[in-house]
């Protein structure tokens, strides 16, 4: 298989931050529309895998094919980042006074506005639609710094979705969330799935939770995919 029909195809990927590579001959393929859960111990390289997919690491060896395109150069990286949404691990609230609406709309920077091009009607419509989906429409004028942990997490997901990504990478979306908020998040992900045919990769520590949201789960150990766990 060459990964032509896959959303994501990685083969023999070695990457890291300096001397010893964190990802060590990692191979993985994800079908279009599939929801994949990634499990693994702290420090196994899960976040590093996401950074490799987004071409945010200094040197990457092996093949990474995203939506059918081999990612090698800086331009490829930019191409990928305009099609892949990314919600990093442990995002804070920031220090700038900014409304929920503006924060989400800023996620579209580089898509349809930048420098001299101001955000237009399309940006506002899309922002409103996404806020509605994640259930933050009523809080649209609220200062982001005054949101609860669960609301903040939904805000960050909205900031990724507003870029109309084909692939969404969620890095531990459930940390800091209580059971009720996890439930809200799970229903949100279901809803997103119904609305858009997204491919989704989620780093999740909770196996039960992974089973609920994903079609398939993989276990990452020492920079490789160790086992594929079937989700029934």
């Amino acid at each position, binding site marked *: 298989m060459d990964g032509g029909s896959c959303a994501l195809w990685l083969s023999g990927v070695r990457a890291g931050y300096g001397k010893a590579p964190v990802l060590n001959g990692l191979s993985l393929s994800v079908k279009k529309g599939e929801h994949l859960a990634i499990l693994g111990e702290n420090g196994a390289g899960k976040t590093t895998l996401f950074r490799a997919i987004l071409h945010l690491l200094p040197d990457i060896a092996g093949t990474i094919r995203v939506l059918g395109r081999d990612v090698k150069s800086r331009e490829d990286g930019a191409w990928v980042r305009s099609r892949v949404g990314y919600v*990093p691990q442990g995002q804070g609230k*920031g220090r*700038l*006074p*900014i409304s929920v609406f503006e924060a989400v709309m800023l996620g579209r920077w580089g898509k349809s506005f930048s*420098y001299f091009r*101001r955000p237009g009607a399309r940006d506002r419509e899309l922002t409103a639609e996404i806020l509605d989906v994640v259930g933050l429409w009523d809080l649209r004028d609220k200062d982001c710094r005054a949101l609860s942990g669960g609301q903040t997490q939904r805000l960050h997901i909205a900031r990724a979705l507003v870029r109309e990504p084909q692939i969404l990478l969620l890095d531990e979306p459930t940390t800091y969330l209580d059971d009720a908020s996890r439930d809200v998040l799970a229903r949100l992900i279901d809803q997103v799935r119904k609305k858009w045919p997204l491919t989704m990769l989620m780093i999740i520590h909770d196996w039960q939770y992974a089973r609920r949201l994903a079609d398939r789960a993989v276990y990452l150990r020492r920079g490789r995919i160790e086992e594929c766990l079937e989700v029934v």
Partner: protein
Amino acid sequence: MSIGEYLQVPIFQRALLAALVAGGTVSLLGVVIVMLNLTTMRFALMHMALLGGAAGLAFGASPLAGATAAIVLGSLFLGPFSERLRLDAGITGAFFMTGSIALAFVLFYKAGVPALDVFGLFTGSLLSLSRDDLLAVAGLGAAILLVYACLFREIQLVFYDPEQAEWLGVPAKRIKNALLFLTGLSIGVAMKVVGALLIDALILIPAMTAMRLSRSLLQILVLSSFFGTAAAAGGLLISMALDMPSGAAITLTGVCLLGLSVFIRR
């Protein structure tokens, strides 16, 4: 003399114009100091200005020319320098602050530079501004407005989420360095207008007042500019009416506005 009579005199007219322009624009960089954590950096730039002033005197130039040159160089290099060494801008600032003040003392001693001449930099005055100074202030003000007008969304994103800004392709580092450079130039202007020890009155205090009352970056900018103008022009007029040093009057006006905002917000 009454205020009306003062304002017939070209020197005072020029001072008022400079207060309006500098107060309205330089204050726009206060939010940069807060969001990019440049509080130590601005102290470092001030101390480098002192070193520059000493060097200027030692080489027979005016202390202000030396100080301005030092600030320009410092603000051009401090940002990229801390980036390169992966240091916090605050740490680099502290390093250069003590380093440059020590060098200045060596210069005072070795070159026999009279320290008091350099410390003259610590007191500025609106009334000492020349026509060229006024033009320089206006040029800087225009540059600040232009940067905010062209890069508003980019600056907003860099302040809100610098990491996302970076990977979305916003030239975050270049924007930060440009803002640091403008901040450096503004410190130079503020030294001339209110004196080195009172630069915060013009740059930081209006922004702090604005940030207490604002809910968005745009509001912060509009209010900073308003409070900056009010403090600078109001302070100048008060100094004429009550016969006070203008730098002190401007600072006290700014501090009063800040105090008032604390009160209002309650």
